[in-house]
């Protein structure tokens, strides 16, 4: 992390990394989705709708991982004053918000044929919706702070406080046993049959690479905008 504190050094890493993440992400995500739609059998209970798993689970993972990234950037900024930490936090938020929105949308669509409802104020669904609103709040706060020339410390504190919602999302299916199913995939194994499960690692890796590419592209855009602003200030002085 500290080796990339210098923006010039970061850009030397970020330029090729963006291209590779985009290419690998597209291949894995498209391959995984195609396999999930055509090569796996239907579930004995859910039938064909189980195929929504291959996009819903990566979106849920990235919605939460995005905020974990914001929390990490916030610590890095508040403790070590890492020069790219605020940029990384601001760049991560739109990608995290997008995947939280994908998770909510695909979950709602999956819920209609499976549960008979588009939405229920269940613990998992509600905490995920709160995460989406937290992202919107972070985006608004961080951009307002940047426009006023702040260092992004208020947004960093907000990022840390918002991280309280992550364990709530994770354990919501254990704390409140309502509509959303319990954990199917844990560190010790999975209750999903391997004939259905195998494309999931492909889409998980693919969408994670695309998420990484989006974050790097936003960081490069922010650094270039900062360079333009600094140069214009020097020219007008």
């Amino acid at each position, binding site marked *: 992390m500290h080796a990339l504190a210098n923006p010039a050094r970061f850009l030397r890493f970020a330029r090729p990394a963006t291209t590779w993440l985009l290419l690998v992400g597209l291949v894995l995500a498209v391959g995984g989705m195609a396999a999930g739609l055509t090569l796996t059998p239907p579930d004995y209970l859910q039938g064909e709708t189980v195929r929504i798993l291959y996009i819903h689970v990566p979106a849920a993972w990235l919605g939460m991982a995005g905020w974990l990234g914001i929390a990490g950037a916030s610590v890095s900024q508040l403790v070590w004053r890492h020069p790219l930490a605020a940029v990384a936090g601001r760049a991560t938020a*739109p990608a995290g918000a*997008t995947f939280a929105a994908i998770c909510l*949308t*695909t979950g709602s669509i999956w819920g209609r044929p499976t549960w008979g409802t588009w939405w229920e104020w269940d613990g998992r669904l509600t905490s995920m919706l709160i995460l989406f609103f937290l992202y919107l709040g972070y985006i608004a706060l961080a951009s307002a702070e940047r426009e006023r020339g702040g260092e992004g410390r208020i947004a960093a504190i907000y990022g840390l406080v918002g991280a309280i919602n992550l364990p709530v999302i994770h354990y919501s299916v254990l704390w409140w046993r309502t509509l959303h199913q319990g954990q199917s995939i844990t560190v010790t194994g999975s209750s999903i049959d391997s004939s259905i499960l195998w494309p999931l690692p492909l889409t998980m890796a693919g969408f994670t690479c695309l998420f990484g590419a989006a974050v790097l*592209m936003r960081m*490069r855009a922010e650094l*270039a905008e900062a360079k*333009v602003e600094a140069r214009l200030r020097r020219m007008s002085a």
Partner: protein
Amino acid sequence: MNPWPFVIAAYGAAIALTAALLLWAHGSMRRAEAAADALKRK
């Protein structure tokens, strides 16, 4: 209930939102880097 319209709608939404994110991020990066390069050449 035919499940395929739900499956197609879910994949369509996921692909459209991911593509929108990537296109927006790529476009903003290209514009910002082009502006920085143009200013450097001045």
